[in-house]
């Protein structure tokens, strides 16, 4: 009897999270539909055009999508290797003293407000890039700085989740490797890491979702105004950056801009979903299940 109550409570809480997701998608979808019902919008143009300029009536999603993907890719390029390296160091090498020193630093990094990171990108990372690569190469507002700083923001997240996954690998596996004369590095990279891959894939997925959805840093540092370019040193507005900018002022209900926000939100949702599925597939190929 008691068991049944607990079980249905647990089922309800699981159902609740699904219900929330469905509700969000429904709401976004309903408003996005309004967007496509507006006379000036054609679906074909939206998915093929590389111009997004609401005031001239151009609504092609590609400039927003590419800049979202580029900033996210730069961020993951920093956050994934660095985060994994730190996680491996913490779980396989660090002495208790080093751990107790490093972990609070990571927690502080993760706790800094993203607006601060945004201005850090603008007033530190951008000048740094410009002084290294040249002022004519790197724009003042550019996707690269925003992506790099976003990587620093996401790294502690990946570190902490990956470290949990690595620490959960049974000690007996490490002992087996050491007992055969494996070095620490061989043990960490060839035994512990593959065994922890499912947990690490969760870290990667959370990291990607965070990067795609991150708003403040790109709004401040990546540039205002959609721009279809693959050059990370140019300025280009991301989906999230665009949403904050146009929703910032006096946005009237039922205008094209208003409806486009919901469409963009839905787009963001599907990009995240697609990347999640992709990375899960990718990781599943290499992981080794220990239970």
């Amino acid at each position, binding site marked *: 009897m008691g068991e049944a109550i607990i079980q249905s409570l647990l089922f309800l809480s699981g159902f609740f999270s699904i219900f929330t997701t469905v509700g969000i998608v429904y709401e976004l979808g309903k408003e996005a539909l309004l967007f496509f019902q507006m006379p000036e919008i054609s679906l074909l143009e939206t998915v093929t055009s590389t111009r997004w300029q609401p005031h001239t009536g151009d609504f092609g999603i590609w400039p927003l999508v590419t800049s979202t993907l580029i900033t996210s890719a730069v961020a993951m390029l920093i956050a994934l290797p660095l985060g994994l390296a730190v996680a491996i160091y913490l779980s396989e090498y660090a002495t*208790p003293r080093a751990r107790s020193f490093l972990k609070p630093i990571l927690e502080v990094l993760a706790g800094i407000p993203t607006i601060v990171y945004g201005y850090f990108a603008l007033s530190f990372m951008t000048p740094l890039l410009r002084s290294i690569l040249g002022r004519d190469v790197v724009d003042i507002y550019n996707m690269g700085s925003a992506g790099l700083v976003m990587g620093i923001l996401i790294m502690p997240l990946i570190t902490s989740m990956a470290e949990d996954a690595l620490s959960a690998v*049974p000690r*007996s*596996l490490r*002992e*087996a*490797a*050491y*007992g*055969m*004369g*494996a*070095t620490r590095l*061989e043990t960490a990279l*060839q*035994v512990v890491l*593959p*065994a922890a891959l499912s947990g690490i894939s969760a870290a990667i997925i959370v990291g990607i979702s965070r990067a795609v959805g991150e708003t403040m840093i790109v709004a401040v540092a990546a540039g205002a105004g959609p721009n279809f370019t693959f050059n990370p040193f140019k300025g280009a507005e991301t989906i999230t950056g665009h949403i904050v900018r146009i929703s910032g002022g006096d946005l009237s209900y039922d205008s094209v801009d208003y409806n486009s926000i919901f469409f963009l939100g839905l787009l963001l949702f599907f990009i995240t979903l697609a990347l999640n599925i992709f990375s899960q597939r990718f990781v599943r190929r290499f992981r*080794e*299940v*220990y*239970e």
Partner: protein
Amino acid sequence: MQQNIETTEKPELVIETRNLNIFYNDFRAVSNVNMSVKRHRITAIIGPSGCGKTTLLRSFNRMNELVPGSHAEGEVIFDGQNLYDPMVDPVEVRYRIGMVFQIANPFPKSIYENIAWGARIHGYRGRMDGLVESCLRQAALWDEVKDKLNQSGLALSGGQQQRLCIARALAVQPEVILMDEPASALDPIATLKIEELIQELKKNYTIVIVTHNMQQAARVSDYTAMMMLSDAQRAGTVIEYNETNIIFTRPQDKRTEDYVTGRFG
């Protein structure tokens, strides 16, 4: 110099401990052990629970120092060299003195890869398929797994997993194999298989085995070290070391006699 004379005069000695003490932080778990392990013989370590058998065994290939806070004092001489000399690399030690654990711990890799991995990290250049087959044959596992080498090592039964772990240890081609109660989690049939296997391996390897099982020690081993907590220090030590049949038929120490005849405690 003296070491050289000793090793050449008694070539059958592979491992010899001298006043070996092992600590967990300040706690002395093993005190003053002087014993030896002879080449191509099976040496059993027996004694009641908690007397330091595992600790002693793991000090023979410096596995014990992986436990934070543990350290050893004294010497373990292997091939004429003190393993605890600061110049000695513990990775090298474990390469030459392999280990099989109480609970089978195959890697979550394929059966094939479980064996090939150890050889590969040590730069094995020969035919890997041949090595995998020969190790599995030596571990009396080949016939059971030859058709499913690509399956996970964890998909095997407990006894098969333990034989896989033995095969894996062989792939590294160690001189000595340390076994910590390798059959304690297995049923009598699987245990018998492991025991037969150990007897077989004696031809090419030196084996040290910890066991709780008196009959097992009597059945498989050539030499036996009897460990017990010494009353004064509450630390485990070897109270008697001799040929197995002497330990089991006419032990010198009353405590050994009580223990091996089951009258202990």
